[in-house]
């Protein structure tokens, strides 16, 4: 809704620049505004592709953190979830999130189609190409949020749970939160102040992490995670290179996630957002690396990756509202948070990839960081600047604390709503088809037990030795090496008798 108004406003602004009274001016101004709007949509399209690429990031991250017997299921999960959430968002979710309506949910835009009327009153519009682009971009965010949910459930959840929860998540849970903050709902006007969540530290990341918490509470830890005394044991993932690949893909995708949330190209503001994103991610890696080194005297590879993700999640909400100097601070703090949180949570809950810490706690931090660091230059109309500018600047501290309170309210609202619906959904799944595979299937691995095939077959199926018959010709560096002389061969086989005897 807001995005559309923004684009229309931009068009009007461009039109007003052109002098009136010149005969050809009006059509020219229209053309310029139209092209500007189309240019905006091209940027959103590029950003949208980057955000969809993040699915590959989640896939590699989770597979790398899993054991070899649970890798194929990670691929299947990403594909099936992306497919289901797409249909759910198109049929219902988009309407609930963006379809005008009341403060709680939208009521138009279901089964999204061309020329459909969405919204009501003065805000109503007919669906055209640009709206389709924005609808698709919204779906990419919903899919990211859903992908976060499963980080805590690896290596033991029943595949059916993915399917059922994905429908509920894509149609109801994520759309309700998105509507509250971005669709003109409850959180877009709290006592005159809107929640400032630029690209979704709470809307996308905290939402996903709270779903992950609900699933984990009903699912329990993997077999062997805790010893008889309840002490946690490491279950190392099978591939740090895959984890690294996942982190880098997510990092790159985040430029579309945050940068694209400008929805426009005017003044190339997306450049500011992207630089903030990079600064925070870098600081996240540094923060997590320092923290884990202080804690364990080793530079943990997985934690460095978690630090990058935490920095990125932390800057997601503030990326469009803070100055460059604040971004590294936000990222650094997020990096520290993720390490200490992973270590603390591990004592109680089995979260194989650290989703609760990297997306949940860093998401809360990011949402609150807006209330601390938001620059008066960049805040949205009606909102208060960060308390930093109240303490060290001339801004009113009262307004600033008011905004911080509003940000806190967004965190609380997101947590309560998402947790309530998610725990109910997972409880229902547990009571009907079951949430967890039997112990023997968990031991054998989900690849063979749920999917009937191994993700890495050669690790499990013996391979015959390759033989060309006699005599063997050795190859080194592509150049054939002469076979050993016959005399030597017989010397190693004394029983054959022969030439050298």
């Amino acid at each position, binding site marked *: 809704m807001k995005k559309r108004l923004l684009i229309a406003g931009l068009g009007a602004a461009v039109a007003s620049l052109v002098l009136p009274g010149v005969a050809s001016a009006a059509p020219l101004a229209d053309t310029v505004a139209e092209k500007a709007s189309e240019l905006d949509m091209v940027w959103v399209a590029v950003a949208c592709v980057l955000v969809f690429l993040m699915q590959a990031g989640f896939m590699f991250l989770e597979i790398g953190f899993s054991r070899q017997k649970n890798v194929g299921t990670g691929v299947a999960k990403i594909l099936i979830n992306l497919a289901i959430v797409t249909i759910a968002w198109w049929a219902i979710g988009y309407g609930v999130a963006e379809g005008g309506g009341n403060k709680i949910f939208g009521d138009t835009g279901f089964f999204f189609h061309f020329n459909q009327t969405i919204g009501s009153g003065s805000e109503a519009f007919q669906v055209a190409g640009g709206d389709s682009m924005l609808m698709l971009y919204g779906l990419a965010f919903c899919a990211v949020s859903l992908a976060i949910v499963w980080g805590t459930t690896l290596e033991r959840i029943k595949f059916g749970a993915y399917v059922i929860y994905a429908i509920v998540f894509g149609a109801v849970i994520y759309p309700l939160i998105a509507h509250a903050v971005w669709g003109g709902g409850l959180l877009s006007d709290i006592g005159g102040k809107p929640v400032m969540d630029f690209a979704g530290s709470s809307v996308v990341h905290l939402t996903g992490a709270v779903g992950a918490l609900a699933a984990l509470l009903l699912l329990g830890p993997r*077999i*062997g995670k805790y010893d008889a005394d309840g002490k946690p044991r490491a279950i190392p993932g099978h591939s740090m290179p895959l984890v690294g690949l996942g982190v880098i893909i997510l990092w790159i995708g985040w430029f579309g996630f945050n940068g694209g949330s400008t929805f426009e190209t005017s003044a190339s503001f997306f450049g500011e957002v992207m630089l903030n994103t990079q600064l925070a991610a870098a600081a996240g890696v540094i923060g997590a690396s320092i923290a884990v080194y202080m804690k364990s005297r080793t530079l943990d590879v997985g934690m460095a990756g978690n630090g990058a993700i935490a920095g990125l999640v932390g800057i997601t909400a503030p990326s469009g509202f803070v100055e460059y100097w604040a971004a590294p601070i936000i990222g650094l703090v997020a990096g520290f948070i993720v390490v200490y949180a992973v270590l603390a949570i591990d004592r109680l809950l089995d979260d194989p990839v650290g989703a609760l810490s990297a997306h949940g706690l860093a998401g809360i931090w990011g949402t609150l960081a807006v209330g601390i660091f938001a620059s008066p230059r960049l805040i949205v109309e009606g909102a208060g600047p960060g308390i930093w500018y109240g303490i060290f600047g001339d801004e009113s501290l009262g307004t600033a604390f008011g905004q911080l309170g509003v940000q806190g309210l967004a965190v609380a609202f997101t947590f309560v709503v998402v947790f309530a619906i998610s725990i109910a959904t997972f409880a229902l799944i547990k009571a009907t088809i079951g949430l967890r595979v039997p112990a023997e299937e968990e*031991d054998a691995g989900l690849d*063979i037990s749920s999917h*009937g095939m191994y993700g890495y077959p050669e690790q*499990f199926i*013996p391979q015959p030795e390759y033989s060309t018959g006699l005599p063997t010709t050795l190859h080194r560096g592509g150049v054939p090496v002469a076979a050993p002389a016959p005399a030597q061969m017989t010397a190693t086989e004394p029983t054959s008798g022969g030439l050298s005897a």
Partner: protein
Amino acid sequence: MKKIEAFIRHEAFEPIRAELLDKGFPSLSIIEAKGSGRQKGIVERYRGSTLTVNVRPKLKLEVVVEDKDRDLVVETILKHARTGEVGDGKIFVLPVEEAIRIRTGEDGQSVLQLHEESEIPT
């Protein structure tokens, strides 16, 4: 001296190792083995076709002990490796002719003993 070779399920290894360590048998080896017994093979489905793998992954546990410790080790393995289902594996006990510690060259049963605390580098 006896060598005890046990083919066991993967998940049985950790409790066996813990108890053997507890009872003073820290020296053991495991080998990732694939084999078949009465347990059926695994049917793998790949892009619509099936493939039967007639061997299953097991662990082969090897421990060499003095004759008097034979029963203790065998009982420990039985205790943790038995689920009652087909596929629990088998234990073989073999006589061992000689044991030599490579570092010192010493031989005989003494190489099977636990090290004195002072001997173990930290």
